[in-house]
């Protein structure tokens, strides 16, 4: 393997690994705060699956703890979608619906390929199918539940919509058909939202700021505070083992 393909593979592993790491962290913030006991179990389950994926992916790029705990905000390559604060339960579910649908399509393609991510994707796609089903069931309940839940779910799908376009930007080293994925994603998410008596939001699917986004290390303001909390203890004891 040449140096440049190795660098490409590392950057790709970071992009996919950071998505899983950061979303896992956000879901972990729900512990002790979920609306019903079954969701304490379900959200933790999803967070644990994602953390498992993150550990494998980050280990492909280097030392998992150095990468998670010692990088600065600008060095993280995750999508801005996954770093968005939990908000109310509808926001968390909308974020899950958007991301898990994307991740299922991504891992399905990667699992069929012969690249370095195929073994992980083959295993993880089964987990992600459950994540998507969980998000779908809750989107239906909230969208087609009460007037209040419908309104909250609608607001959540719209608020997070502008972070969805980034999922279909090419990532070097992740060899998938992005345009095919976008079409399949729109169809799948659109179908769930329609059944939930909602609709695909109409606004732009990406922000007006074209300088770049998560994959280029540009994040939203709350992400820095999330990392400060996540990294504080590890950074306070340089060189210690835990």
């Amino acid at each position, binding site marked *: 393997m040449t140096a440049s393909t190795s660098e490409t593979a590392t950057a790709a592993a970071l992009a996919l690994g950071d998505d899983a*790491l950061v979303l896992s962290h956000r879901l972990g913030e729900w*512990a002790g*705060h979920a*609306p019903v*006991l079954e969701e304490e179990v379900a959200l933790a389950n999803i967070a644990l699956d994602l953390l498992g994926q993150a550990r494998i992916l980050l280990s492909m790029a280097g030392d998992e703890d150095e990468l998670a705990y010692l990088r600065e905000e600008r060095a993280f390559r995750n999508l801005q979608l996954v770093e968005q604060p939990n908000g109310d339960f509808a926001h968390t579910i909308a974020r899950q619906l958007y991301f898990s649908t994307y991740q299922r399509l991504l891992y399905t393609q990667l699992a069929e390929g012969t690249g370095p991510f195929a073994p992980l994707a083959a295993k993880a796609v089964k987990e992600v199918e459950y994540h998507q089903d969980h998000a779908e069931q809750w989107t239906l309940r*909230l969208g087609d539940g009460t007037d209040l839940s419908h309104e909250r779910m609608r607001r959540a799908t719209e608020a997070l919509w502008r972070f969805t376009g980034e999922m279909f930007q090419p990532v070097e080293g992740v060899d998938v058909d992005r345009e095919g994925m976008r079409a399949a994603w729109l169809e799948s998410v659109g179908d769930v939202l329609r059944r939930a008596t909602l609709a695909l939001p109409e606004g732009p699917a990406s922000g007006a700021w074209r300088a770049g986004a998560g994959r280029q290390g540009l994040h939203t303001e709350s992400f820095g505070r999330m990392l400060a909390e996540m990294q504080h203890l590890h950074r306070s004891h340089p060189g210690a083992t835990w």
Partner: protein
Amino acid sequence: MATAAPHHTARAQADGQDEAAHAAAYEAVFDAAVAADERIEPRDWMPDAYRSTLVRQIAQHAHSEIIGMQPEANWITRAPSLRRKAILMAKVQDEAGHGLYLYSAAETLGTGRDELLDKLHTGRQKYSSIFNYPTLTWADVGAIGWLVDGAAITNQVPLCRCSYGPYARAMVRICKEESFHQRQGYELLLALSRGTPEQHEMAQDAVNRWWWPSLMMFGPPDDESSHSAQSMAWKIKRHSNDELRQRFVDICVPQAESLGLTLPDPDLVWNEERGHHDFGAIDWTEFREVLKGNGPCNEQRITQRRRAHDEGAWVREAAAAYAEKQATRAEPPAGHTDQQSNGTGSPQGDEPAGTADEHAEARA
């Protein structure tokens, strides 16, 4: 279960007799089953006081599991390595799962989760006082695993043989997981104790703060314990508070030595004659104060629990409304009452277990 048939036989035989004779016949069968170490099952006759004692105890245990998530969840977002983060998240998830089994066990006695949660939220039922202490450093996660879960296991292993079947079976599964939690806590502390001087000090400080509250987890001394005698007779409880506390101290002393940490009790010494460790006097004033609500975190724990419940009300209402719409849409043929056909189940889980059976019985 083997006990079910004789109980039902007794019920049939008792038909037609007067009320007092019924009660006496049922009670005789119940007493015999308990004496023979057989399990009492949900449909068996049981004394009202046995039922209410069990509901109180199981509910308190369930509440302790879900309140107990808070002090540990406090460190999920700051866990210092990804491995530790995964272990901690899995542990907190297990506690939510234990809460689910235990509320289900209470439901088999006819008391639903909503009612029990309401009692918790309004202070009419308690949870273990240990969770009213704060987790101030990462080492507290280890100390909770080693000491608090260790004490819980010492208390709970005998409950696997408790006379009430659903509770005993829930405890078998819970004890397996708790024993894993206890080992991870010990291993976490070992890593700190053998780490940098700062990490060692963190571990020692945590053990200093958690040791005495852990001893209090076994409850008041035997001569002051109000429910103990009856619970022992019913085999809901198998050993006295002081017996279990002594067993725990004897287990912890050599473990503390292996950890390279000291237990904060100058009076702790091996007593050759008794074959046990003697230990210092417990500050029961503190115990009673924390129990009364004056612990460092009582207010915080119950406030967070209530807030999560209240803020989640709209979500539970949405799920119920959706399930109702789905049931209507399915338009079942007359007489068909299976509401689970939409596949979503009951996300609130507030339907008492056994309802389907009762429906079946009502239709039969």
